């Protein structure tokens, strides 16, 4: 069995996902970073973007994360985000509407948030 790392994905007001994984890919301010078991202790600042978690049973969990941190030590990885949503919690149609509205209103940050969620939602489907 391949080595595993324990992942905790927590938002400010709840625990979003927790479990064992073999690979976690997240976007930090200086680019995408992939963390596998045995990685050097790491503390990084996350950008808004999708986070991909390859679970140890072969599945994939994708979550949209808006700002936050990644911290890894002793094969324990925590993803801290103010807002985090799993891809299957995201309502694609609603996000598409939000995206259009944000574009129409020229709200750049709302547009980016909606875009991240849309990408996370479509990544698994």
């Amino acid at each position: 069995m391949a080595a595993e790392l324990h992942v905790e994905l927590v938002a400010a007001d709840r625990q979003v996902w927790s479990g064992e994984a073999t690979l976690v890919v997240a976007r930090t301010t200086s680019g995408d970073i992939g963390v596998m078991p045995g990685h050097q202790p790491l503390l990084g600042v996350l950008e808004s973007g999708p986070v991909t978690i390859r679970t140890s049973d072969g599945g994939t969990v994708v979550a949209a994360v808006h700002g936050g941190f990644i911290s890894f030590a002793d094969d324990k990885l925590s993803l801290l985000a103010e807002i985090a949503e799993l891809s299957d919690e995201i309502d694609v149609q609603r996000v598409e509407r939000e995206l259009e509205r944000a574009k129409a209103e020229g709200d750049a940050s709302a547009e980016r948030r909606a875009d991240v969620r849309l990408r996370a939602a479509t990544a698994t489907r």
Partner: protein
Amino acid sequence: MGAQLRVYKRRIRSVTATKKITKAMEMIAASRVVKAQRKVAASTPYAQELTRAVTAVGTGSNTRHPLTTEAENPTRAAVLLLTSDRGLAGAFNSNAIKAAEQLTERLEREGKQVDTYIVGRRGVAHYNFRERTVAESFTGFTDEPTYADAKKVAAPLIEAIETETADGGVDELHIVYTEFVSMMTQTAVDPRLLPLRLDEVAAETGKKDEILPLYDFEPSAEDVLDALLPRYVESRIYNALLQSAASKHAATRRAMKSATDNAGELINTLSRLANAARQAEITQEISEIVGGASALADATAGSDN
């Protein structure tokens, strides 16, 4: 029905109605406490991980940051006071306000100028009535605070602490809120949030002797700390808001419970008085009848002779 008896009956009716209301409020508050407690518990993992990360950066690097270094000569401080929007919670708000006033007094004795930030209509009303200056106030969300509310409260505070003292910024940030110890105990506390005392933060995580690994910072320790500390402040304020909400509901529950108990006692006393009044009325009627009858009998006996 005699006048006295009617008055008692009316009061019993009114107290019974009040009792029903306080009983309902007690039960609503009880269910809200549970909900608020659950929210506190749900926010704990994030706060814990964040605290761990702050400790890691703080101890694992030699970075100096305005949020962790103590000013040599602090002259200005900000006090954030958390109260509730609504009353009917016993001494909940007055305890928090009293704690804030004591803290303000202490800081002023130390020669610091204090800026007050208030959450909750009760606190705002208290300060406005005494015509004290309030730097900023927030209302409307104290029953069920969300993280977005915490961000809104934290924003001006973080800005104030990042501003140089000479330009109207502050050196210290204190927060006064009511800690939810248990269903029966809630205490007003006034910890200093900033500048951070790293040893205290480390003690909070409960694992004092844990050796933190040497982290690799991405992109750099300064940037991580820059991003981390405002989030830390937000999360602490969020936690305080949640605890304050839970405490408020617990205080309301207790206040309403004793109101219900008192109403029950009052109803008992009043019904006893009403019974006594009724009995007195009956006794009087009987003695009137007896008196009337014997007077009549005396009169007939007299006419016989």
